[in-house]
């Protein structure tokens, strides 16, 4: 914290929020310049969790990078696995059997439930509720993590998907348990919404706070729920039609104002749509193999070329850009991190607001530092 002098505003106060700060969701840092309580400048500072994921991936085999992708956005390891598998399959020309496609959809949507319910909990933490909604969210999260654990062996770092399919075929008991959990999930959502959505304090703190325009958001590369909160209908599950998403009936919820409240509601509505997708997937899950017979684990050498695979992660468009030089290691391995790029507009959203609003806006954008800094 230090005083700075500005010729327009007079004496200003520069506050460094983070990297150790209860509301920055990890080791994120913002250098905020304040005029009284108003923000006149906000500069995000990154890199406190820069773990050199890309450099490590370029010096190791394609398969060895798979467990590292778990640790990118550590709340959504299943979607990260899928995005990477998608890019490698595109690079190597692999196909994925039907059952594996369905399993991937199931895992990705379960991950979306985990991510969005936790995000709402964290957002309310930032609003000052001190842990209560998070406890509800983590209660449900634990149930889903138990499913992941019994299937893949680990609660968070699933390392479940492989190029050309999935690693483990879930037994019928697992599917029954998962299906029962999904059927009960709307009850949790109802409870959650009764507790939170009508809350007057929450409405006052979020409605009209940090509004984002559609054109502004598109130009800044905002994706995911933050983009759809502005009313832009762009969901890669519909646009790219990857996986078997065209087979499922679901709607893409759209906001109107692009403010913090819309961003919050996007998450709630998307969870309801995810439940619909999951119920269809459990009904229609076909029998069959879960791996492409052409795929091999060790010594995978795609032909020279490049591929950009992307999917609709819970936080936005997660992309992997791979360049193969024909060897066992990728020549270039690039992660397109939605968390980082969604922060592009953070300063614009916060200008003129108070520091308490900045915390809420940051919470509603939904970042995970493992992905921001990689």
């Amino acid at each position, binding site marked *: 914290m230090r005083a700075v002098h500005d010729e327009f505003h007079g004496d200003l106060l520069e506050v460094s929020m983070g*990297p*150790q*700060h*209860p509301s920055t969701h*990890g*080791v994120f840092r913002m250098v905020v310049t304040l005029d009284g309580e108003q923000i006149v400048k906000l500069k995000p500072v990154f*890199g*406190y*969790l*820069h*773990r*050199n*994921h890309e*450099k*490590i991936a370029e*010096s190791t085999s394609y398969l060895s990078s798979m*467990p*590292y992708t778990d*640790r990118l956005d*550590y*709340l959504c390891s299943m979607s990260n696995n899928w995005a990477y598998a998608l890019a490698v399959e595109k690079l190597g020309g692999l196909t994925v059997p039907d059952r594996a496609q369905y399993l991937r959809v199931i895992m990705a949507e379960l991950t979306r439930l985990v991510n969005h319910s936790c995000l709402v909990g964290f957002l309310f933490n930032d609003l000052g509720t001190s842990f209560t909604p*998070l*406890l509800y969210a*983590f*209660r449900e*999260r*634990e149930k889903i993590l138990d499913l992941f654990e019994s299937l893949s062996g680990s*609660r*968070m*770092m699933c390392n479940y998907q492989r190029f050309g399919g999935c690693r483990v075929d879930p037994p019928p008991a697992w599917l029954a348990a998962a299906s029962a959990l999904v059927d009960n999930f709307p009850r949790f959502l109802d409870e959650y919404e009764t507790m939170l959505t009508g809350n007057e304090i929450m409405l006052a703190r979020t409605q009209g706070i940090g509004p984002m325009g559609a054109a502004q958001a598109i130009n800044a590369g905002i994706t995911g729920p933050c983009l759809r909160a502005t009313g832009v209908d762009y969901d890669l599950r519909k646009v790219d039609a990857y996986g078997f998403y065209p087979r499922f009936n679901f709607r893409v919820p759209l906001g109107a104002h692009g403010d913090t409240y819309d961003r919050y509601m996007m998450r709630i509505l998307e969870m309801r749509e995810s439940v619909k997708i999951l119920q269809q997937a459990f009904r229609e899950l076909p029998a069959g193999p879960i791996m492409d017979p052409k795929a091999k684990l060790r010594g995978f050498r795609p032909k020279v070329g490049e591929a950009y695979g992307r999917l609709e992660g819970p936080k936005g468009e997660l992309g992997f850009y791979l360049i193969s030089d024909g060897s066992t290691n990728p020549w270039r391995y690039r992660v397109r991190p939605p968390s980082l790029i969604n922060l592009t507009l953070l300063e614009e959203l916060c200008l003129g607001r108070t520091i308490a609003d900045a915390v809420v806006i940051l919470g509603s954008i939904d970042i995970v*530092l*493992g992905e921001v*800094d990689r």
Partner: protein
Amino acid sequence: MSNLTPPFSPGASPQDEPRRSPAGEGGPAAGNISDSEREDLRQHGILLTSLEELYGWGRSNSIWPLQFGLACCAIEMIAAATARFDIARFGAEIFRPSPRQADLMIVSGTVTKKMAPLVVRLWNQMPEPKYCIAMGACAISGGPFKQGYNVLKGIDRLIPVDIYIPGCPPRPEALLHGLTELQAKIRAEHVSGPQAARHLQADSASEFPIPDYGAHDLEPPHNPDLFKPPASPRAEGLKN
């Protein structure tokens, strides 16, 4: 596999317990009761304690950790604080946002070189007595990311660590296990004498030098007074 010696074991080696006279057989004098006898009395409803033990018991059950998450392990740390694992059962649920109010730093996640000076600064800001748990592979050794150019290969290069909890990430139960080990360690600490706890010894360091950002690496990259790795087991008979 636990490498902790039982911290408050009844007959710890005699040089550890100089004040305890070896009067076991002939009936103990007052104040010289062996632990087994004390346990015996406890079962009969008679509670004997020393001020030291009471002090240790109180401290070990009111550890306030620093609210400070670095990476993936932080999520498991939060999970340990939620209803299912409920770290409050061990008196450690009060995560303090300020280092000035915290007793325990749980280094939960990868410490990058950009973050390392700040971790040391936070550690220096914590008042004594303070403890450090390195949670997860990254905090212990850099873990899977140790090959990275910006990853510190273990937080024990810069600050002292009391308990290491391996895992990637460790389950919340593993964190609770590590916490109980730390509690045992705190309970076994003495308040006076040559075996006094680290923070009560006059010559023990409480603050550690904060490394600077250099042109290529941290300067210094580790604290040579603190980080003394043994000779590598690979020193002899290297594979070519």
